[in-house]
């Protein structure tokens, strides 16, 4: 895979964090613009919008006498938002997509698309209607839920083998473990 292609794959399988960064940037822009406007108003000798720069500084210096409830609120809110932002910055932010083996093109499939293919295969193997099967995919595990036709047994191992085979056919890298859950109550004529 060329450098361009590996770059494309990395960018397409990981979140760009654009929404979070844009929200933070807008908040910062508003805050900094407010500070600047207060500074300009002060320089022009006009009345401040909320607090003049000097009043901001003295208020900040008097923070210890702000009272415990306010300090607790500040600590809690800043702490929670800070942890969330650092987590967003550090965590990989994988998107639910997988790279498929391709000769010429770089092919990435959404997990939703893969799950739908696996559900079709599972419904064939279990002899139920496609609507009676739901598949959810995680990074390394997948769960296949089947609502059987009442009075019919579903061979789980058969379904597991079929689903794993379909997955291996599509996907080259990484292995998956599938668990097959058959609902205890069947559906009539499903």
């Amino acid at each position, binding site marked *: 895979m060329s450098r361009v292609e590996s*770059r*494309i794959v990395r*960018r*397409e399988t990981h979140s*760009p*964090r*654009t929404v*979070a*960064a844009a929200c933070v*940037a807008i908040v*910062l*822009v508003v805050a*900094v*613009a407010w500070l*600047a406007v207060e*500074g300009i108003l002060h*320089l022009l000798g006009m009345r401040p919008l909320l607090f003049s720069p*000097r009043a901001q*500084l003295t208020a*900040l*210096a*008097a*923070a*210890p*006498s702000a009272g415990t409830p306010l*300090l*607790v609120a*500040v*600590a*809690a809110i*800043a*702490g929670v*938002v*800070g942890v969330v*932002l650092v987590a*967003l*910055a*550090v965590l990989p932010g994988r998107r639910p997509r997988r790279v*498929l083996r*391709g*000769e*010429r*093109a*770089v*092919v*990435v*499939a*959404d997990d*939703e*698309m*893969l*799950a*739908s*293919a696996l559900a*079709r295969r599972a419904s064939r193997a279990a*002899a139920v209607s*496609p609507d009676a099967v739901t598949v959810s995919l995680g990074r390394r595990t997948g769960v296949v839920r089947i609502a059987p036709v009442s009075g019919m047994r579903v061979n789980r191992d058969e379904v597991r083998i079929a689903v794993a085979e379909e997955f291996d*056919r*599509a996907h080259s890298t990484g292995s998956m473990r599938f668990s097959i859950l058959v609902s205890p109550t069947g559906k009539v*004529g499903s």
Partner: protein
Amino acid sequence: MNDTNRVINRLLLAVTGIALLAVAGLAVALIAVPDAGRLWRGIGRSATTAADGVFGVRLWPGTTLSLAALIALAVAALFVILLIVQVVRAGHGATSTVLTLSTPDGSVELDAAVPAALLTEQLKPVPGVAGVAVSAYRVRRTPALKVTVRCRRGASPREVADAVDEAVALLDSALGTTLPVFAQLVGGFRSRLQAATRVDTSTSAARPS
């Protein structure tokens, strides 16, 4: 595949997050540590006098303007502009020209619509494909194609991926050069079965009973 600068996005989040954690830590220290309040007031008083001193230096007589105020405003303006640029730039980077050939008579530019039409024509009849969209982006200054293949419910990923490979190989021979091609398979549960399956082998008719 666009111009979004992801490193700056993450840096912005990290720096803001760490600053907020520091604020939270200071607030906790003010509540929990008995001497912290006194220390804070002392630092605050000296900071106030220092600021008064720096901002009190007039640039010329009869003005309120000081060098420190000018610098502070310039830094604020720069900061705001950089942040707005970062927000506005996100998501762009699509290009319409995928190929530029220079011949002795001049240069030829190939629009993205040409490979788009070729790929769409090739992929449309493939079973399981409900729709195709093609766009072009610049990645590391080379144009690359992005093919979004909307699949029908239950479409085999292998078959669709092979069809994409084949279509791209055909495109290569038509263009005479190889462009990086990225294909994304989307769809699935939400796109319902359509005319592609007239004979439904999965219902009771095919079930051993």
